[in-house]
């Protein structure tokens, strides 16, 4: 979908779509450290994953709206450090619980897959 490279992303490596169903978890995790705005969340996921995951802005902003509606994120308009108004997302208590649930679920799945691969190998 995106034809151009993003600043800070390794140009030579192909980017991967976020694994189905994990976008919510990645967003919740990013926000769990500090309140962030939409662009910041996208950048953080991309940077921490070293450019493996790139998130389409449309999907990202839609997911944020969905999580806000679900009550896992609160939102607040604030001034950014460079004096622009931005919508900051804050993890709620329910969001923190949901993150714990999703993380546990994810670890279980990853270790299961790892076991399977080892057995095959």
């Amino acid at each position: 979908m995106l034809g151009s490279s993003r600043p800070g992303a390794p140009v030579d490596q192909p980017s991967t779509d976020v694994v189905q169903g994990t976008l919510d978890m990645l967003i919740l995790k990013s926000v769990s450290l500090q309140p962030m705005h939409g662009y910041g969340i996208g950048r953080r996921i991309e940077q921490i994953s070293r450019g493996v995951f790139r998130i389409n802005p449309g999907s990202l902003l839609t997911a944020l709206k969905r999580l806000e509606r679900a009550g896992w994120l609160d939102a607040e308009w604030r001034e950014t450090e460079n004096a622009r108004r931005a919508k900051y997302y804050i993890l709620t208590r329910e969001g923190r619980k949901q993150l714990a649930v999703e993380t546990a679920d994810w670890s279980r799945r990853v270790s299961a897959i790892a076991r399977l691969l080892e057995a095959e190998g």
Partner: protein
Amino acid sequence: MTLLRRVTLGLRALARPDLAERETADEVEHYLREAAAAHRALGLSEEAAFRAARLELGSPAGVREEIRRHGWENGVEAFLGDLRYAGRRLRLEPGFTVIATLTLGLGIGAATAIFSAVNHVLIRPLPYPEAERILAVWDIREDGVQLDIAYGTARELAARARSLEHLAAMKPWQPTLLGAAEPERLEGQQVGAGYFGVLGVRPALGRGFSPADDAAGAAPVAVLGDGLWRRRFGADPGVIGRTVTLDGLPYQILGVMPPRFENAAAPGVEVWTPLGYDMSQGRAWGHHLRLLARARPGASLDAVRRELETIALHPVADFPRVPWAALEHGFRVRPLQDEVTAGARPALFALLGAVGIVLAVACVNVAGLLLARGARRRGELAVRAALGAGHQRLIRQLLTESVVLSLVGGAAGVGVAAVAVRALVVLSPAGLPRAHAIAVDGTALVFALALSMAVAVAVGLLPAFAATRGDLREAVGRGPAPARHGAGRDALVVAQVMLALVLLVGSGLLFRSVRRLLAVDAGFDTPGLVTMQIQSSGPRLEDDSTRLRFFAAALEAVRQVPGVTAAALTSQLPLSGEDDRYGLHLDPAPAADPGELGGGTYRYAVSPDYLRTMGVPLLRGRGLTSADDAGAPRVAVVSASLARRRFPGVDPIGHRVRVGPADSPPYTIVGVVGDVKQVSLALDEGEAVYLPVSQWHFADRVLSLVVRARGEPGRVVPAVRSAVWSVDPDQAVVRVAAMGDLVKASAEDRRFALELFEGFALAALVLVGVGVCGSLSGRVAERTREIGVRAALGASRGALVSLVLRRGLALTAIGIAMGIAASLVASRAISSLLYGISRADAATYLSVAALLGAVALVAGSVPAWRAARVDPALPLRAE
């Protein structure tokens, strides 16, 4: 919590759409700026950085739309948007909109009207508390024919049946109310004391009947209906306890029934009095009472049936029975509702089916219109698709338009139904029970709404899918699309023709039935005959000989009226609704007498020249003469069918018969006359005996006057009435009718069904014409270029016309073939309304098919003519 949050956030977005929109836009804008800033930080120029950020984000409008689409409120908003858009589109095409909503409105309206009738007449319970507990009870004869109940039987059931809470016998009563300018005959009922208890309704004023009121010889009392009370007593609450003079006797008024009281068992009755029977009376064992009962709470219909069966089969000494009411074959018990509505059921259900077909044809028509419109709109849809509207979104938009159409049509339909229901009540045969209760009520409105939604889907689905099928992008900028929907449209034409044929076959069969019925020989000479009823009443005419003298004098006075060529009296008038039958026994009884048929032999006590006045042909022997009077030997004339069946191979003349009680004096048969239809033209029960009125063992209180007059028979009526009143001004002369009208009325219920069927069939025929014309026109419009090429290449006009017509006729032929197959099955629904005709009647099917073919031909000729006038130069110019 979460749900609450979803709802409130959604509602906020709905309430302030601008605010929500603004927030989303700001967020997207912020994202864009941050991205641009990041690019700038890597050294790109301001402009390049912004371009790169735009590229990364994609179209901001697209992203905004993607975000906006999330959340439940968006569905509502989209629906409202669709609705607004649909309204705008429909306003832009007023011709299409008006035709489509009118078509649907008529269909939905007619369906709602018939549904209202079915609902009120057949489905809704009778207007009594726990109406399902009210039952009608009949005696059964050995051949299964139901008989009226004898008082002795009713009395035994009242004492023995535990499963019945109330029980009341009843019989019709037509008292004459004196005191006004003209004596008024009232419809009344003589009822057992439990009658109002059976119905569960109390008088609004005063009280009902007590068992003491019902005792033989008790002082006469009456309960009035609300209408009579208002009409004749000025709604005076003080009438209770006062007396009213009926048939010359003072009746004390006990009560007045409530205004909304409906006497379902005998509609039109407005005065009641107790029966006053006891077992000492000879009539106590006559089969002439109807019996109603209210089951005890908790006693099911089956339980009542079982108990009555047991009672019937186990006589007890306290209640001795007579041989003809020995109850050896038990009782027939059924809910009063079934009893009252049984006659109307077949016609109403047939009409429901017919109106369903009309609605289906209307739907098919509108679907065809939508299909053509969808094809015209492919360009528009393609633009919307290019702007980002998904496939589903487009289908939803189109369906919304058909929902709007159907709802507007449904609203129009409710108006149509309100008018149609009134027309239905006016048109309905006198025999349609509870007709006055038919109205468009809440249930009907819900029905109309549900029907409209169903119609919206039925009408919109196929066109919506057809319009959005395939790759829409190719259609951008092309305007009206090429022919792609031929198959769908052809199927609609075929379906329409098929449905219309089924309806046409139904009305054709009914039409021929009614014609045949009216062509049936009633057995007498109808034209020039006028009839009326003379009701003798009052103490002055109390004894038989005075009454006979009054009738004789009245008859003589009528004969003197100028214009009257013949006049006679009879105790019952053919086809007037009267049904007066007696047992007829041969004397001496032969070894092998086949016995009575049906409910007995029709007994006519007549003045000597009745048969001549009516024009009933004398087949053998002699008729009755004025010499056959009270002192002369008793003589009788019998009908041909009675002679044939009871005297097989024997000349009945000279044989003797007893009529009524087996110990009554015998009559010697002196003549045989032709059969006469008594109850209905459709029934073949012609066994009758004619006796001189002066020789019958009691003098009837009510006799019908039959007058044959020169010219228009109605003209002599006032003079005839005055002639009767010149003898005694206090006697009621009622039920004036031309004999021809009575004959016509006998086909009334079929005529009612026929008229509605004809209306529906006509509507379907018009719709089919419009449908075929529209479909072929669409075809011609789409293929204008091809036709032009053909014309340019030398195709004659005739060839072009036949090109179009062949198509239309081929589709019609398929529809007709399918319709014939469907009719063979569907006509079962009206089989009980047919008379003298098979429901597979070939002539009907053929003529209906020809009619439909002709309509298709006419409808197709318009587009065919248009095709023939296509300019051969057109394709060249169009390129």
